[in-house]
């Protein structure tokens, strides 16, 4: 009995140590952000006075009003577009068994392994030809498309996991395809849809390479892309950089804390089902 208790203590000691290793960098970052702008900071040190004004300063210097607006425009457009396309496609592949459905399914899954680097060059020139660089539509289209393989795959496996009797019962009641989807399947898909939405929001928010290539206009860039350039300008101003970093991650961290279950289910299940 005693050995199992000490085993448990040891396990928690390991867990706490590992959690500290993950959290310490962020503690260091937050402390740095509270030092006087432009001052030299030591790794882990409490500031003499807390310089909360750094956040206002970083917001202003980094042009965060524009960056945040762009980030939210792109993310709030990408999430529903991706979801609608993924729901329709997943429903079709899992329930309606379309002609060449199996091949199309593989065609989408293929996209899970394609890196952004493969498409970003040609996408830039293609969009430039039609005047869609420096345009939200270009970035939104790119992001939605990059995340569609995951979305379709996620919704397809969700619908496939629903009991076939549901679909049969709907059919017997005379429901057409769209009614079946809207009245029978979607009302039972809340958790799966929430997970898809928070993951697409996160991946869209975090997208970097695509945005710096397709958005040359600094005012139209998203928060992480703006932060990536901010580093170049304020290399040595650690407090200001730290404050800008915290502003950039704040929305995603808040989302993560609220929808923590969905994020984790999505990251781990999405991975496992493959």
């Amino acid at each position: 009995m005693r050995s199992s208790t000490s085993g448990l203590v040891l396990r928690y000691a390991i867990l706490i140590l590992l959690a500290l290793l993950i959290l310490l960098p962020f503690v260091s970052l937050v402390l740095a952000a509270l030092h006087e702008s432009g001052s030299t900071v030591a790794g882990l040190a409490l500031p003499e006075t807390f310089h909360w004004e750094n956040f206002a300063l970083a917001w202003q210097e980094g042009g965060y009003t524009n960056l945040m607006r762009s980030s939210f425009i792109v993310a709030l457009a990408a999430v529903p577009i991706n979801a609608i396309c993924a729901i329709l496609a997943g429903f079709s592949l899992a329930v309606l068994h379309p002609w060449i459905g199996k091949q199309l399914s593989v065609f989408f899954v293929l996209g899970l392994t394609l890196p952004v680097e493969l498409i970003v060059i040609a996408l830039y020139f293609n969009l430039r030809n039609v005047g869609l660089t420096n345009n939200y539509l270009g970035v939104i289209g790119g992001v939605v498309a990059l995340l569609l393989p995951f979305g379709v795959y996620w919704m397809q496996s969700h619908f496939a996991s629903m009991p076939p009797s549901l679909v049969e019962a709907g059919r017997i009641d005379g429901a057409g395809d769209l009614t079946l989807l809207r009245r029978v399947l979607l009302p039972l898909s809340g958790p799966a849809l929430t997970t898809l939405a928070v993951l697409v929001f996160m991946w869209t928010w975090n997208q970097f390479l695509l945005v710096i290539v397709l958005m040359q206009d600094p005012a139209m860039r998203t928060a992480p892309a703006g932060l990536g350039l901010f580093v170049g300008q304020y290399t040595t101003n650690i407090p200001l950089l730290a404050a800008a970093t915290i502003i950039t991650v704040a929305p995603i961290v808040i989302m993560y804390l609220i929808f923590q279950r969905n994020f984790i289910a999505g990251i781990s299940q999405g991975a496992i089902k493959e």
Partner: protein
Amino acid sequence: MADPATAEVVRPQNSRGRTTSRRSSSVTRRRRTKALVYLLPALLIYIGFVIYPAVNTIQLSFLTWDGVQAPTPAGLDNYAQIFQNPELYRSVLNALLLIVFFTVIPVIVGLVMTALLIGKVRRGMTFFRTVFFLPQVLPLVAVGITWRWLYADTGIINQFFSAIGLDSITRAWLGDYDLALYALGFIGTWCMSGLCMMLFLSGAQKIDPALYEAAKIDGAGPLRQHLSVTLPGVRPEITIASVITTIAALASFDLVFVTTNGGPANQTNVPALLVYRLAFTRGEVGTASALAIALTVLVIIFVMLIRRITREAR
């Protein structure tokens, strides 16, 4: 559409079409063609913004083009460049080294931690899970800036080494000619270890406890039990963790862009960084495209390799 007679025919089963009777096969065929309409929005966007550009990139890789003037055919020259130009092939070697830090070490850490932690830990797991997944949800740009600060002259890493009396080894890690790439790689280890650990732990929880009992009866010690019960039990999770982290290593851009930007003296160049620079600042679109294709091929080869290895171990 709402025809009860066909409802039977298209009963949603995994073995599609098996229940189809000849009598109504034309109805079924019409239905199955109509089902394609639901796929159209996804297909159009996916083809327009991913497949079409991907095919264009292949075409560009056979051209010499600065992005402005008329392109000229280049044959295989751009691909030859990858093998001949040290800047290019070193970037590929660097990416391969990053796999050690992004994949190999995190998977080993994850397996060791699973062996140590498996079992009784219940309370507080939500908290630990939330913390260990945190690096997965943050933009890598932010992770990179955080680590720039940790690695800086006055950062926490040097502070730590000074505190334990190792003043002599303190330095600006990301600016160190010999160590920058390893310092960069370690950020990947930090990011990915928690992911691997949590994936393996949740996989291990699904293993039937009877298997451990059986192993114990056969005289297997704790190590033997983990090698012959836990390890095979979490094989799917090992596969997927390896795939995710290997892609992250090979195609890494954000992290490198904000921490070292390839420096010092190209020591931390990676293919993705060169793809970006060649195409958009140096006007070598063809070479950039060839490198992007090579990178994609490398990713696909590694994904197939990982699947092959983890499957054959069965």
